[in-house]
């Protein structure tokens, strides 16, 4: 039982070492792909175990909780690892056609695997200091991936990215230190109990705000999001798709975990802050996107706006809203990664991702155009795609508790999202190419074409599937939401039966 919890972390790390040894060989990429498949097998085994509502935990190093490091998988944690695995497979296949030999020689595949290990570790850990360690692992790997190739604008974006993320981790670390000073424990389940028995609640609210700031920077919410659009359009397409799908969502996951498990006592204060943050994030993100003219920059601002919906679900703090937030996170990772993958192919065919220098894709690459529409409409929330159900849950949850403003902002943001997607559609797909170029897919080799299109089709079909058959995922999200709101099972799994 304990092994299955460790595998999603150990498999990518071992693969990373192999990939590093094979970085000058053409086998490196296949080893990397094999590693992601193994990781996915472990992740889905984990989902199968927790799908009946059980929570499993493993104590590292044979130290009993709360003294050692605990790995825990509940429905949310396992689902996050599984969706990480799906994104990893898609980007690993995509990388076969996107990452050149020079980047491979610099260690692309090793860094990629370390990033997957870091993300999986963050989703599975039950120890707050260990969460910090995984954040650092992710930060180092993602900085490496972002600056691979070392073009000046990449270094520029990378430095902004790393500086702000360091501020975030320092805030996080200070918060962890203060929390430890107050309660004497770092185990999240133990913290949940210890915090409830604290007499002085005042300092706790201060620490809660520090955590909102730290995870807020990570997940790019208003007004801390500006690092994201400044850096996500610079790295290789496969890398930006991976970042867009996963990295900010780790921040959102940490928010959800901490603000349901530990900081759930003064919700009138903390969740009120989260509510306003969420609404402003949705609006500024989508308005920022309207002002952009680069494919990937528009998508970057939309990440920000969509994060708002997830935080809104957390802020409303009803069972339906939390389930909606979980559903939203899972759906969004697939859709957003896919849109960046489409942007990569479109950019390759047209020779640029500047909308002013793109065009003619609908005529020359109709399949790509159709595959763009699925995630684009899903992002905007059109039925019957996955985004419709995600938005429906959040809006329904807002209306249920008469949060009219929240529901209005959610709907308006959806409409404005359509505006941006139409802009991309019009400029890149519909109108002819300004330089008279015909962006035929044949411009890529047959092998590269397959490697680039297959993952897009795979993710689009998943979006379509979730949209048409939402019940399994809805049920799973509801169960995850119930577990989050009543963490008794989680605490019992970690600490054993309490006296």
């Amino acid at each position: 039982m304990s092994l299955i919890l460790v595998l999603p972390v150990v498999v990518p790390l071992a693969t990373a070492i192999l990939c590093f040894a094979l970085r000058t060989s053409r086998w490196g990429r296949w080893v990397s792909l094999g590693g992601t498949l193994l990781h996915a097998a472990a992740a889905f085994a984990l989902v199968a175990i927790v799908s009946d509502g059980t929570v499993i935990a493993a104590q590292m190093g044979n130290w009993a909780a709360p003294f050692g490091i605990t790995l825990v998988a509940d429905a949310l944690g396992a689902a996050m690892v599984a969706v990480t695995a799906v994104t990893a497979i898609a980007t690993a296949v995509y990388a076969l056609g996107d990452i050149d030999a020079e980047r491979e020689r610099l260690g692309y595949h090793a860094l990629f695997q370390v990033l997957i290990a870091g993300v999986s570790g963050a989703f599975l850990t039950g120890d707050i200091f260990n969460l910090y360690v995984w954040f650092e692992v992710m930060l180092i790997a993602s900085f490496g991936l972002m600056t691979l190739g070392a073009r000046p604008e990449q270094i520029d974006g990378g430095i902004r990215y790393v500086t702000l993320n360091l501020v975030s981790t320092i805030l996080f670390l200070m918060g962890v230190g203060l929390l430890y000073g107050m309660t004497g424990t770092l185990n999240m389940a133990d913290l949940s109990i210890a915090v409830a028995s604290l007499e002085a609640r005042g300092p706790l609210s201060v620490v809660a705000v520090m955590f909102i700031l730290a995870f807020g920077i990570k997940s790019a919410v208003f007004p801390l999001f500006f690092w994201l659009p400044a850096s996500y359009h610079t790295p290789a397409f496969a890398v930006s798709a991976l970042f867009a799908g996963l990295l900010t969502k780790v921040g959102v996951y940490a928010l959800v975990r901490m603000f349901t498990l530990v900081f759930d006592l003064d919700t009138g204060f903390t969740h009120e802050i989260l509510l306003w943050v969420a609404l402003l994030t949705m609006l500024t993100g989508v308005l920022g996107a309207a002002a952009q003219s680069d494919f990937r920059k528009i998508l970057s601002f939309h990440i920000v706006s969509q994060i708002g919906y997830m935080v809104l679900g957390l802020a409303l703090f009803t069972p339906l809203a939390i389930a909606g937030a979980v559903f939203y996170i899972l759906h969004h990772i697939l859709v957003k990664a896919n849109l960046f993958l489409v942007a990569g192919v479109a950019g390759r065919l047209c020779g640029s991702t500047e909308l002013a220098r793109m065009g003619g894709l609908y005529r020359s690459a109709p399949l790509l155009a159709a595959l763009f529409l699925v995630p684009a409409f899903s992002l905007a929330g059109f039925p019957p795609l996955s985004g419709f159900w995600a938005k429906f849950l959040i809006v329904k949850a807002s209306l249920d508790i008469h949060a009219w403003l929240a529901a209005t902002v959610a709907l308006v943001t959806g409409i404005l999202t359509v505006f941006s997607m139409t802009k991309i559609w019009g400029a890149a797909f519909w109108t002819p190419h300004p330089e008279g170029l015909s962006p035929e897919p044949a411009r890529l080799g047959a092998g590269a074409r397959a490697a680039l299109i297959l993952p897009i089709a795979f993710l689009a079909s998943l979006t379509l599937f979730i949209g048409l058959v939402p019940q399994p995922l809805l049920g799973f999200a509801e169960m995850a939401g119930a577990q989050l709101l009543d963490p008794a099972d989680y605490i019992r799994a970690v600490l054993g039966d309490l006296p």
Partner: protein
Amino acid sequence: MNSVILQAGARYLAALLLLFSIHMLLRGHNEPGGGFIGGLIGATGFVIYSLACGVGEARAALRVAPEAVAAIGLALALLAGLLPLFLGLPLFTGLWPFLGTGPDGGKGLPVSSVLLFDIGVYLVVLGSVLTLVLLLEDEGERND
């Protein structure tokens, strides 16, 4: 930077820092310290050396590419974590084989898997910090 004083001093400083970093690594066994902080201090030594004598000199002094240092460290740490699995213990359980016997007939020199893990962490931190810093300094020199 072309300061003779810095260049002369950097050699001693780097050596001192490296020595101190190993002290911190070993001290971390039972007292505050350990692989992470040791690796950071060790990296500082090489960073000072690279500032004084140039990135090329620092890379030469390191002898192995910093990325390889990090990868080897990761392999050692992972090995230390996986070893207990072969003995049927949970992962990352500390193993404590003792070498020989102590002076008063007690236990000998402890060679634990915990130390192996810490050495791995030391190398990972040293390697990854130097990879980043030397890359950025390279870039800086090219722009000058």
